[in-house]
């Protein structure tokens, strides 16, 4: 099953995402910010990256930019979890190499539906 790296500084969001994904049978790696995610992504290959935008230490956009530089993440789908108010963030995210985004707030069903879009 695909392994997903879920990055969010909010524990409740992370829990919800993890629970949903694990319930659907995915392997989940959790990270609390971009820096943490980068370390974990280097340690273990993730098939999909799911990251919040606003985080301390390293935000989601910087994370995607860093990950895209790594050969093993060149083609990996990377989704931003963002709010509708942040249209410029979407563009910024795309420029950094994001595959797509999921608009907050979302429910578990929407999360799984979006993931299906990027699963091979």
């Amino acid at each position, binding site marked *: 099953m695909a392994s997903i790296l879920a990055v969010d*500084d*909010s*524990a*409740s*969001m992370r*829990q*919800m995402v993890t*629970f*949903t994904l694990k*319930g*659907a049978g995915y392997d989940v790696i959790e990270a609390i910010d971009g820096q943490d995610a980068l370390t974990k992504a280097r340690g273990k290959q993730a098939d999909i990256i799911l990251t*919040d935008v*606003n*985080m*301390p230490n390293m935000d989601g956009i910087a994370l995607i930019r860093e990950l*895209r530089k790594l050969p093993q993440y*060149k*083609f*990996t*789908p*990377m989704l931003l*979890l963002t*709010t509708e*108010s942040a249209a410029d963030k979407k563009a910024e995210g*795309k420029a950094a*190499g*994001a*595959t*797509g*985004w999921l608009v*907050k*707030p*979302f*429910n*578990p*069903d929407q999360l*799984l539906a979006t993931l299906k*879009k*990027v*699963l*091979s």
Partner: protein
Amino acid sequence: MSIEISQFHQVFFEESSEGLEIMESGLLALGVGEPDLEAINTIFRAAHSIKGGSGTFGFTAISEFTHVMETLLDEMRAGKRLVTREAVDVLLEGVDRLRGLLGAARDGVPADADDVAATSRRLEALLDGGNTGGAAAAVADVTLPAVTGWRVRFVPAAHLFQTGNDPARLLRELMALGPSRIECDLARLPTHLDAYDPESCYLAWTVDLDNDVPEAAVREVFEWVDNDADIRIVPLAGDGPANEAAATPALTAVPAPDERRSGDDRRQHEDRRAGDRRQMAAAPATASIRVDIDKVDALINMVGELVITQSMLSQLAADFDVALIEKLRAGVAQLERNTRELQESVMSIRMMPISFSFNRFPRLVRDLSAKLGKQVNLKMTGENTELDKTVLEKIGDPLVHLVRNALDHGIEPPDVRRECGKHSAGTLTLNAYHEGSNIVIEIIDDGAGLNRDRILAKARERGIVGDQDVLSDEQIFDLVFAPGFSTATVVSDVSGRGVGMDVVRRNIKDLGGVVEVESKTGEGSVFRIRLPLTLAILDGQLVRVGSEVYIVSLVSIIESLQVKPDAVSSVAGQTELYRLRDEYLPIVRLYDLFDVAPDSQNLGDGLLVIVEAEGRKVGLFVDDLLGQQQVVIKSLQTNFRRVDGISGATILGDGKVAMILDTAGLIHLSRTQYQPARRWCAERQVA
């Protein structure tokens, strides 16, 4: 797939209240006019998380409210808006409303809608006065009646793969919308293999979708690749390009999935969620604690050590030989060490830094000093001093009271301060530190100090002190804790009506602590609270009466002494008083009280343990003093029933149960028993 979203609520509430604290302290620290970008960013992130979480977990009202705050903060962050005092004030008000909203959502009660609406209006007024067009109407999906489907021309840019997108997946999405025919366009493929880059996309596609879904649905499929592909979507009419396309043999028909079913599923799911929310509201909030992962790791580590020691000991026991006695001793010593370490780390789990309680004060002091027209600098030291969570929760209110008092009565208005030659801004210091197994919290102000004469006059007026009594400064200052005592000439809504200080003292006493005051006229006052670090363990003095062992809390013991027979006086034939220096203390014969057989009934044979509680002292007559040790308190009330004069029990090293004496209760008992003696004693002390 159904997931109970309510199971994440608890974590959401916890982290939101942390977020609110971050916002509040961030806002308070925010310099007006010279904003610290990182600080604004931190505040913004906290608001953003609360908004995201509340939206996700079904609290739309909170989400909407936070949205406005977030927008304001976002503008500040982007430098589009100045950080003004007004903006900070309104945002702080917003934090309060959010706290209310979150609390209401947690308890399942309605929030104060009027307050929230008022703050909302204020926030919105702050956001560009006339900006109401923010919510532009969504573009309506206009579907021409004649449209039967869509023709999509999809030409990805060569770099498409590098965004993590895959044309195959996008086409799959598109095909899910209805029966489609797909044609692949190979025209862009390089003719020479040398020119072929495996990481580039050369293919293009034309898809005919035979289903009149809204155009937006088709656009949504390509939403993520808008800038990474050339996408043209044209409607297919009854006759026209569609028929032409249908003739192309390369196109394959794909059936559409049953959409209606998934819609039903979602509705059902939402119904269930609403039900859960109702259930949640009925369930009582469970207390939980957030523990530093390091502490948990240390704990697991120690349990590991314990298991090793245990297996070593059982191996020894399996074939024991007297020759191994040294090994056994070493093993037992190790077990003792493990146990002590384990105990310490388990206790530390309940320990939290006092900053959880201190954090509310910057705000309180800011609001209050503005209200009182005073200038106050708040200094906090020792915020990382840890204490038991229960103690921490209960000390909050007394602290607030003392801080309010210091601001209201202690620190003078700026003009008065200048007249006295002091800086116009007063300083209020909150200080915490450990002292043995106690935590000491000090509330220090550099204000006027307690007015000795006024307190005494007031106490005489109220009949708390007799007209002829001579009291030391210490005793006079202590009067502020007497019930119904207030020296404020004008009762203000800031620090109550003199019903507070006695409650403060009682609350602190309930926690096994003491509060005392030191003051110098014109220089300020220090209120010092001394609390046990935890309520679960007590530093005890073991005392023996006959064959029974009792435990007296070490903090309540003033001294222990051998009885000088000539210092004992008897009143009304039964009550005994002991003259210790210039005081007369009632003697409580513990054997008499608990009805046990002592070694001797003769006072000269035993010892007198002088204990103090609530400012009163008695001498406990015991046969002997044994050691001092920390004891784990077991509640008598939950295991048996309440017994006057006993606060709990513990199990000693030899397995015997020992009662822990309730000093305050004993003093109370002695007072009711020895009424005549008190009168006698009072007469003597006056004389």
